[in-house]
């Protein structure tokens, strides 16, 4: 089967912006297809296969389907493709693919969603095969040109050589011929042994740094289109409330204002020539809300509901080994504690935003999304158009952390507003206050734990009861089977491979009682491993101390059946100098936990002053993510996870009063700053026998390691977060 040569669609965004700037008006970029003359192909590059485009100068453009939000996936995926492609790493470029085209091409690029730390582990196999297939086609093209068996050719850095005849040629010269060959059967391709990697597995520099240093990078919030209007939006501050009315006349004459418009049932937007004018008018706009019954909810009513769930009999047990309740009741020594963690917002520094153009038969959006296909679905549904009538221009995100996944509330809003201005691009930007008020928060929960020990301090049984809000109940009710939502027990699962409980306890019961609220919840970097990591690992510390044992030794004794959990714990303990002397006043804490198919452990060093002031000096984190595609970027993610985790531990809480969120900007929702950053040391211990995630796994050990070190310093456990509410002296 012959394939037609296709010209690559390099940077359609640039095309649109520049053609518009050239006086062509707004070029709706619909269906700019992957077709073109051979001439165009020569100029722009030739698509050898879906993953690889080769330009005449042998630059290899690697197509990236997952979203880049700072986590480095773009560079890692390019490394994996380039490794198999055997191209010159110095001549690698990348481009995003479009969800509409993915759909049109029968999802040739697979899943575009970027969440759950799946960007690399979820696509490594087929992208490596893509790179290898392109290499095979390029070599085949050379063999046919020279009429020699392909087995006589060698390739390095994008140059193919036939040693016997002393001939060599480049990928750039072969691309068009290669693109016309029948691709090899992906299943027949033998991938390299990771031990032989030269590009993957190495600390390559990121490919996307340069324009982050000079202001040149265009984020979605920076987009400019000719004739574009800007919109500021406000939804009812009480979740679930409705818009009753607004008095447009009061703002109609304000500078730049075009209109105030209803945005579905629960929000209103002002559209103006600039965003600042839109926001200024929105603040002056009289709005009447129907806040509904949720206005009676508060942090106190929610805490009561969760507390009731700690002992209610509607919980289900996901793990039941032996008879934990009976064994604990009869044990000579008992430990019991109740922990709690609050709602948290994501607080990406780039605000939620989306630009949309809607006409009678098309909808086009430019957005920062972790789910490009989710954005396409949301845009088309909101516009009332079929999927084929939509397209999404994906721009790199100024932070994601789970906020910009499948829900795409801001993309929907942008389309709902732009629909009322047919053919005109409208850029919607949320204020920081709107973002803090309308997130999909990390779910609130409480946890009651009890343990029984024998006289010698041996653990006989443990009972864990989580009571709290369910993400699935809010976002994906279909995933809850017979009322049992195992997702909220992430990290406490009995099944190996993803987020397994890492201890062997002879009598063990782990339960979840679902207690939902009116506050929207969703995945937040690390998701439920955050709360469950604190609950289990801080309680383990309490139990180890009650048993009179060293925190590390006590854990080790329970981990013989979990060698990978134990492996990272040992690696962190060793690098962290567990048991070695410390400067006066400095104390250590340790924790391990599993999530996203990777194993994490941490050692923290802290001091607490006589006045109760906490300083976190140093953190050592060990991670086994199976294969380490870019060790330097893994270290960057680990460092970032410490900051994200500590912001939550020290300061993070979103409270509820009169049904609405209280902390609306960074003076009441503080985040960690540089002066508070501990020294972070990352130990990567990849066992190369599985593929684990990187962006999320380590966050779950950050807080428990610190809390356990505080326990060591003060002799008192911390059982409720954030620390700003806890007196340490």
């Amino acid at each position: 089967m012959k394939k037609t040569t296709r010209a690559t669609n390099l940077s359609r965004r640039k095309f649109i912006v520049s053609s518009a700037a050239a006086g062509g008006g707004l070029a709706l970029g619909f269906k700019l297809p992957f077709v073109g003359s051979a001439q165009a192909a020569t100029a722009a590059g030739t698509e050898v296969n879906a993953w690889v485009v080769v330009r005449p100068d042998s630059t290899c453009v690697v197509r990236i389907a997952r979203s880049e939000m700072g986590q480095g996936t773009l560079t890692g995926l390019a490394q994996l493709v380039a490794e198999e492609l055997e191209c010159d790493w110095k001549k690698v470029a990348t481009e995003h693919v479009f969800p509409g085209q993915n759909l049109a091409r029968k999802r040739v690029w697979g899943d575009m969603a970027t969440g759950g730390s799946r960007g690399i582990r979820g696509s490594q196999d087929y992208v490596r095969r893509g790179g290898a297939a392109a290499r095979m086609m390029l070599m085949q093209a050379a063999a046919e040109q020279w009429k020699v068996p392909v087995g006589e050719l060698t390739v390095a850095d994008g140059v193919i050589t036939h040693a016997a005849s002393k001939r060599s040629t480049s990928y750039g010269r072969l691309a068009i011929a290669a693109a016309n060959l029948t691709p090899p059967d992906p299943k027949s391709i033998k991938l390299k042994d990771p031990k032989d990697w030269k590009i993957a597995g190495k600390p390559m520099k990121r490919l996307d740094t340069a324009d982050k240093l000079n202001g040149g990078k265009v984020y979605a919030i920076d987009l400019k289109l000719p004739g574009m209007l800007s919109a500021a939006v406000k939804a009812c501050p009480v979740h679930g409330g409705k818009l009753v009315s607004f008095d447009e006349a009061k703002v109609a004459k304000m500078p730049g204002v075009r209109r105030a418009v209803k945005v579905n049932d629960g929000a209103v937007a002002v559209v103006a020539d600039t965003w600042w004018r839109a926001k200024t008018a929105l603040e002056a706009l009289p709005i009447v809300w129907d806040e509904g019954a949720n206005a009676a909810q508060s942090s106190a009513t929610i805490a009561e509901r969760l507390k009731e769930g700690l002992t209610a009999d509607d919980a289900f047990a996901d793990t039941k080994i032996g008879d934990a309740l009976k064994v604990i009741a009869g044990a000579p020594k008992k430990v019991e504690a109740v922990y709690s963690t609050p709602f948290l917002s994501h607080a990406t520094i780039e605000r939620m935003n989306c630009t949309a153009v809607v006409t009678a038969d098309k909808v086009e959006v430019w957005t920062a999304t972790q789910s490009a296909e989710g954005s396409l679905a949301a845009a088309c549904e909101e516009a009332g158009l079929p999927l084929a009538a939509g397209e999404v221009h994906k721009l790199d995100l100024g932070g994601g952390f789970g906020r910009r996944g499948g829900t795409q509330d801001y993309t929907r809003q942008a389309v709902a507003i732009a629909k009322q201005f047919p053919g005109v691009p409208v850029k919607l930007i949320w204020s920081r206050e709107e973002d803090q008020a309308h997130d999909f928060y990390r779910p609130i929960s409480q946890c009651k734990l009890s343990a029984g020990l024998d006289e010698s301090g041996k653990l006989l049984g443990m009972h864990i009861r989580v009571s709290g809000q369910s993400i699935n109940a809010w976002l994906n009710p279909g995933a809850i089977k017979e009322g049992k939502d195992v997702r909220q027990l992430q990290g406490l699962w009995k099944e190996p491979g993803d987020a397994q409980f890492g201890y062997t306890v002879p009598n063990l019961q782990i339960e979840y009682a679902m207690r939902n609220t009116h506050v929207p919840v969703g995945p937040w970097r690390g998701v439920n491993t955050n709360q469950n990591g604190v609950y289990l690992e801080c309680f383990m510390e309490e139990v180890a101390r009650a048993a009179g044992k060293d925190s590390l030794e006590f854990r080790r004794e329970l981990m013989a059946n979990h060698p990978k959990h134990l492996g990272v714990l040992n690696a962190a303990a060793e690098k962290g100098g567990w048991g070695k002397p410390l400067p006066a006043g400095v104390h250590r804490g340790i924790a391990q936990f599993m999530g996203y198919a990777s194993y994490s452990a941490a050692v923290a060093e802290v001091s607490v002053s006589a006045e109760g002031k906490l300083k976190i000096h140093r953190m050592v984190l060990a991670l086994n993510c199976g294969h380490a595609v870019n060790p330097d970027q893994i270290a960057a993610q680990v460092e970032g996870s410490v900051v994200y985790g500590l912001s939550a531990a020290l300061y993070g809480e979103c409270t509820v009063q009169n049904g609405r969120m209280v902390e609306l900007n960074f003076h009441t929702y503080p985040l960690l700053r540089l002066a508070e950053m501990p020294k972070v040391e990352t130990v990567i211990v990849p066992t190369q026998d599985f593929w684990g995630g990187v962006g999320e796994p380590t966050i779950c050990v950050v807080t428990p390691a610190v809390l356990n070190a505080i326990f060591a310093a003060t002799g008192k456990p911390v059982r409720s977060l954030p620390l700003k509410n806890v007196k340490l002296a």
Partner: protein
Amino acid sequence: MAKLNINGKIRDVQAEAGTPLLWVIREQVGLTGTKYGCGVAQCGACSVHINGEVRRSCSVLISDMKPGDRIVTIEGLSATGSHPVQRAWAALDVPQCGYCQSGQIMAAAALLGKNPQPSDADIDAAMTNICRCGTYQRIRAGVHMAAEMVKKA
């Protein structure tokens, strides 16, 4: 109508007196390297230099600008990305998402402008911008590296 000196060019801008400099720079002048993060002088994403001082432009009103004030944005820090801070940031791969980094770089450049060899304590005091991705460890290393470059230059 106001006249602003931004990156050495005089620009005529049309904005209401209460408009923050940030939004004039982004929406009227069209330089989008300066970012909006919080709007209340908390995060520093909007940091620019005014007469050599680092300022959070979301909280500087256009009406507060005096004729002759020199504004430098990230786009004007160096012609070719060759400021020591930019070079150090590239060498250490400091940015993750990059969104806060214009502000971080402007803050670091202002620090080095006043104090070419800052201590860790100086860096703690001067580098107060928020990075949600958590690049602080590399920012600190980057400031030290840039200081070394300045010393050798």
